[in-house]
């Protein structure tokens, strides 16, 4: 179980935004998907996930709505707002630039 601090600051936000860019999802589903897609490498703790979700909502990047889940349960679905979409694109570009840069540094012999 990885602690939130193991993730580079701000990456959790980006992961969440990326997941719900595809389709709106509730908290548990978001955590599951991050785990599945990262092949169990990234495990998001609830203690980090929910504060992050609330912060993103507070900042207006994502919006929350109650809806029915696949097994007919009520759940809070998060979706990306228009501002959030722009923000995510910017952040993703940043991340790519940053990881490329780090990669370049590490690759030097």
């Amino acid at each position, binding site marked *: 179980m990885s602690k939130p601090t193991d993730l580079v600051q701000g990456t959790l936000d980006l992961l969440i935004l990326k997941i719900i860019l595809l389709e709106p999802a*509730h908290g*548990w589903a978001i955590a599951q998907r991050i785990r599945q897609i990262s092949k169990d490498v990234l495990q998001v703790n609830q*203690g980090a996930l*929910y504060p992050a979700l*609330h912060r993103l909502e507070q900042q*207006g990047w994502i919006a929350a709505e109650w809806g029915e889940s696949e*097994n007919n349960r009520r*759940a*809070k679905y998060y979706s990306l707002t228009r501002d959030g979409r722009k923000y995510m694109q910017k952040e993703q570009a940043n991340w790519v630039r940053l990881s490329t840069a780090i990669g370049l540094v590490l690759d030097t012999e």
Partner: protein
Amino acid sequence: MRGLTKISHRIRSLFRRDAVDAELDEELKIHLEFEIQQKIAAGMLPGAARRAAMIEFGGLESVREECKDMRRVNWISDFVRDVAFGARMLRKNAGFTAIALLTLALGIGANAAIFTLVRGVLLRPLVNRDESRLIYIRQTAKGLGMDNQLFSVPEIEDIRASVKSVKEFGDFSTLGFTMVGLGEPRVVQSGVVDGNYFEVMGLRPVLGRLLDMRDDGPKAEGAVVLTYRFWTTVLKSDPTVLGRTVRLESFGPPQFASIVGVLEPSVPYPADTELIANVVTSPHHLSATMVTGRVHRMTELFGRLAPGATLEQARAELTAVYANMVKDHQESYSKKADSHIEARLLRDEITSRARTVLLVLLAASGLIFIIACSNVANLILARTVRREGELSVRSALGATSGALRRTLLAENLLLCGAGALLGVITARPMVAILARYASRFSVRALDLKVDSTMLWVGAGLAVVAAVLLAFIPRLPAGHASQGNSLTSGSVRITGGTKRRLRVFAVIQIAASFVLLAGASMLVKTLVSLQSIQTGMDMRRILTLDMPTTTYGKTKEQVVATYREILRRIQALPGVQRVAIGSLTPWRDAGAFGPGLQFTADGYVRAAGEEDPRAGFRTVSPGFFASLGVPILEGRDFDESDRSTSEPVVIISQTLAQRMFQGRDPLNRHITWTDPVLKFIPGIKIDPIRIVGIAADLDDEHIIPNPAVTIYMPFEQLTFGGRLFVHANTDPYSLVAPITRIVHEMSAEQPVEHAATLADVRAEVLSPERLNTFVFGGFALVALAIAVVGVAGVLAFSVSARTREFGIRLAIGAQPRQLLTRVIVEGALMGGAGIVVGGAGGLALARLAGSYFQDMQMPGAIVVVVSAIVLLAATVIASALPAARAARVDVIQALRAE
């Protein structure tokens, strides 16, 4: 858009807190259920799945709190909660709250009141149009001790003709008119102005019109304008007053004038006049004396700066023009007089007298604020130390040091806010009292309005106090002793806290010492002024203003009337002696200027010297007997000194000594030589024979100076104005019969302002007395707060050291030793405070001395007495806690921790 969403989220989070919390709970619960279902699907038993999910989830509560923090609303609701908590804590410690509130209310109230006063008197602009262009010009003759010598008509004409940086000049002479035709006949303080005056001053009428150029010059009809205060108070705002005719008498024959208008409310300067008249109402103003006499100075000069001109330019130009004038008329500006011209903004001129007093008051109230804050700081500090246990527990439960500060801040804000509220409430009546006091220094204080500034000042001071106070206590977080306080849960006083407590107590004592020394100095001055022996039977001597009126009478008839008035008053039971004089002692000081120049038989003035000056008084026979002034040689005036007989004078003892130096002055002569007199037709400038020498009577100064005075008989000049009655009974019981007698003889004769000499002196000293009262009050308040402060610190220190005292007693210390210990501790604090206060006070006085010329420093005795009072107060303050220390029960003290 995003901002709006944010705000709506925040508002929702804040006001629908419960709903939002419930949603959060549900969301987390659902997450848990998904987790459990997944685990069951993977083959775990329901119970085990639930437990595993719970463990994996971690602290539900902390996640919840963190989510709430993310919504950034916690600080608002937390603050509300902190305030509520603070209120509960304050209610629980009623004693502490009461003292702190009272102290703060006093500190904030005094400052708010004085700031309102300062703003109203010093900072508010005048109502005059373009008041920042309005200047006041004065001529000084420091060599003669005159800060404001006024101007003569020829001087004003010279200035008017040459100065270009001042667009227009207006002049104003203060004059007392005996006014008949508007209510009771009486003397009204008036101004005589030229046609330019109101234009220059930029004032408007509220009724009718003001005086202008058509009222100027000797050909105009008599016209007067009433001041707003006179119209509203005496005349009850009667609009029909316009067009009424009054008879005005000053120097010279009476004149008629009609009322043409009422002036808008404005600051009356230079004198608090009741009416303002054009020049024809005062024959004296049209006489050669006034028009051609360069040294006959009785007019004040106002000016309006020309467009684009600055005050500095006007000053420079005035100085240059004045220098030329002095060069052209050297005979009128003696070297000794050291004449100069000065100009300043009218607003500064008006407030100059009040400025010093108000700034000193502001400083005193600042000290009170410091004392109040230190005292409350002490109380809070002591209380926080007692609360160390509580704070430790909260810190251990996860409160950050910011959160603890916030809690303390909330409590302090509550305390200071309440204190400010109370302070502002008490400030209102304080402003009223202080305004009455300050009106003695500036008339502007009279129409002072309490406005919202006071609230802002109060609120500002409260916030300042609260923030300062919140940062005073040491917080337990991060300290090594944390575990200790947690377990013991009792008071553990540390060196740092103790030092801080002492520092605050010392600050309080120091500030109180400065105030106390200042107040003691005023008390001493007042006492010494009040206890001066004048040699007069002051409680038995009644004085009344009775200006000489001549309307419709020949000189002989006037003399006959007054002689009969005196005869009838003399016949009243209870009257020992009655006489006419020309000045009410002290009250009329300065009315005749620096005196007139004269010389005496055989007196040769030194080269380059001017003739000496003597006070000029007219008195009727019996004046000296009435006041109890002995005739040392020769005789008093008597019935034979009439207008038709030989002119004679009586001189004062000092004059006799200075001018005759051992020769017998009797039957020698004095001669008036003052240049002013040559313009007054009919005055005797021949040598006048001396018939008597009277003891010195200084009617100008409270502290008597040697008096150089020449007395002339009332009947030879028919100029008097004051009645003196030496009574055997209550002097005030004579006022009614005297007034009746005067009115029987002459219905239009004003008789006013009756007072015994004792009361006149008290009235003249009343600014001093008020100063003493106000500063004494400040000092007492400061002393009271400081005593409470010292007592509080020691009480706290004693209760925190119960264990120490217990041990001391257990190993054989005597209660008496503990008692002394605590008292010495108090006295040491007192001593330190006095030293700091003395040093600070000295520095303050130095600083003030560079701004104010006539700074008085308290004498050594005053300082020592204040120090002793303060030291005694601290010892008394430490007695109570000391007694408690001595009564400590050994067993209980040892068991206490």
